[in-house]
């Protein structure tokens, strides 16, 4: 079970894999995630599912190597298996025809944005997409997102592609030209989500953000993933992962994301010395 069926390096340290997981493929929807482990002694980490192949019984996961577990994943080859894959978890995105929707993605978060964008397009929305990254090669899934978008804007910090700047600059451009946007989805690095959500609020656009905090079980059992949204404590695993971007307590969220920094470093360094990387 959970065999890796294909593997592709799509950007520096970013991999695109398809994994055998028939039940997740059959029941999963856009916006949901899985919790996986790479080995018997491994940590349980949440990753968003980027695509489902129901007939083929496969799910697509796009991940960036940031710690021990993702590094271990990057070292698996086609034919190897993940130890555990649990899902689909979390609530699916609310897909309906809202008129014009704005899809804002950054970094590896674009992988989480893509399935939602695809469904929103199918539901008849006019889809405007902004994808941002430090540099051109880090802006992933451009063609796939473009194929399901009425308009695609790319921003890069270094100006190597599209607009030189960050996603909020592109949001400003859309606002200035008078685009009427019913709702936005913003998924990416925390700092990007924070500023894009603030920008959305400034522009009066309601928005969903997809939160990916540290989790243990992923089924509402432990409360590790709790976040504060509109002054209420919510569990990202069962109440989310999408929340009202205007209401997220971002500073608290970032503090909680960092609570095992030292241990994450120890774990990664130990693994690197073991595998000689």
């Amino acid at each position, binding site marked *: 079970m959970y065999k890796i069926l294909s593997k592709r390096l799509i950007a520096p340290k970013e991999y695109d894999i398809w994994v055998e997981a028939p*039940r*997740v493929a059959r*029941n999963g929807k856009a916006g949901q995630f899985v919790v996986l*482990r790479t080995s018997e*002694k*491994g*940590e*349980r980490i949440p990753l968003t599912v980027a695509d489902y192949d129901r007939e083929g019984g496969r799910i697509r996961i796009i991940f960036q190597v940031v710690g*021990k*577990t993702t590094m271990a994943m990057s070292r698996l080859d086609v034919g190897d298996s993940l*130890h*555990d*894959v*649990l*899902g*689909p*978890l979390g609530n699916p995105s609310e897909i309906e025809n809202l008129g014009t929707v704005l899809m804002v993605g950054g970094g590896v978060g674009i992988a989480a944005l893509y399935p939602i964008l695809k469904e929103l397009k199918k539901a008849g929305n006019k889809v405007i997409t902004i994808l941002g990254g430090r540099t051109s090669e880090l802006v992933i899934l451009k063609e796939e997102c473009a194929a399901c978008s009425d308009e695609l804007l790319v921003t890069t910090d270094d100006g190597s592609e599209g607009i030189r700047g960050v996603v909020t600059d592109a949001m400003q451009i859309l606002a200035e030209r008078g685009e009427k946007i019913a709702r936005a989805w913003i998924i990416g690095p925390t700092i990007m989500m924070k500023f894009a959500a603030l920008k959305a609020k400034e522009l009066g656009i309601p928005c969903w953000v997809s939160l990916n905090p540290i989790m*243990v*079980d992923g*089924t*509402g*059992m*432990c*409360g*590790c993933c*709790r*976040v*504060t949204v509109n002054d209420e*404590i919510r*569990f990202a695993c*069962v109440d989310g992962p999408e929340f009202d971007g205007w209401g997220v*307590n971002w*500073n*608290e969220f970032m*503090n*909680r994301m*960092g*609570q*095992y920094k030292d*241990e*994450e470093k*120890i*774990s990664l360094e*130990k693994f690197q010395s073991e595998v000689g990387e």
Partner: protein
Amino acid sequence: MAQKITPKKTPIAEQDPIVRGKNFDEVCLGYSLEEARLEAARCLQCKTAPCIGGCPVAINIPGFIKALADGDLPKAWEVLSDATALPAVCGRVCPQETQCEGVCTVGKIKGKEPVAIGKLERFVADWKAAQPEEPVTPPAQDKGKVAVIGSGPAGLTVAGDLAKMGYKVTVFEALHEPGGVLMYGIPEFRLPKEIVRREIGNIRKLGVDVEVNSVVGRTLSMEEIRSSFDAVFIGTGAGTPHFMRLPGTNLNGVFSASEYLTRINLMHAYQFPDYDTPTRKSKKVVVFGGGNVAMDAARSALRLGADEVTIVYRRSVEELPARIEEYHHAVEEGIVFNFLTNPVEYIGDEKGYLKAVRCIRMKLGEPDASGRRRPIPIEGSEFVIEADTAVEAIGQGSNKVLLNAFPELKLNRWGYIDADEKTGETNLPGVYAGGDIVTGAATVILAMGVGRDAARSIDAYIQGKKQA
């Protein structure tokens, strides 16, 4: 039997408190054969056998003790395993003092302690595990198919009993390892995980299939399950932690007991970095609550190397819901108890880490709905306890993942499944439920008792349907 009964239970070896405070090995070391037979001889073999009635799964207690006293261990095992699929577990974690041992005739004699039934049960189960494995021929499984959701004590009991009756049983477990609270909740030093795995292995040998990584309501729908099985038992446990919702709850260092213990037990955080999952390195730990879970969290914190561990409980020692043995063990190990105290606020530093808890002293007023005297805050008695880690062990509510995906199922006013206490029947034909998802947080053995009853009613339901 004209015998002289020693007033006290035969003493049992335990790890020294100072030594065990630094390791996760089991505290209680168990009886030797001689000690066990000596203790078994304290049983009067009284005709009324109130102990059997005191046991939620009605083990023939005098029967297995008689065989043990006679030195016939295979017979003792046979009697025991006839009634319970988890004897090594129950011998360790049952609250015997309020069940079998609480009603023991010997214990009713002035100046005498009851027979150490739990320790004897554990002895027989551990003896069996040390014997060479016998090939088990699984019973024929042609009477029907049953799905069991959740692999904790309730689900495992239903699965084991139905397999013995001749059903094909599939157990669906959300986590990566079966056992439920036995794996993620109860620490290694009270219940070694090898023992849980062994007892689950015995249930698997009866032909029960266990599918891990399967959240019913997400991975599979209830409709898929109901259409492929003759009946379903839901035993998903009391699964979502309550927080007191004090200011500062989301500071780094504040945990639910469920998270704290799951990291340590299921994920082996005490063996980090050999295992990947860490937990917080704590110096000063405060645990809120007075139940077994609070004791487990506090004693685990101590073993992880904390300098000072305090249990804060809003009532007094008399109302402590924890088993007396667990309380004594905690005291021996140096856990500090702060009774008649309640937290009011978590205080953090500028980086979002917990540094202290503001508490208030309580006094006891009139009895409340639970029959216990209600704690009332004493005005102006606030004080601060320094702490870098706080663990809330104040109970759980029902986990909504399955319930939300299955709205036809009737719930009670507390949000748990509305099921018949005796039979496990719900409002839907062929759907049964039991354990904490029906009663709210209770004990391993109560969940097992309900499991036994539910297995019988599931059998009757399926056979009745076939005849109809």
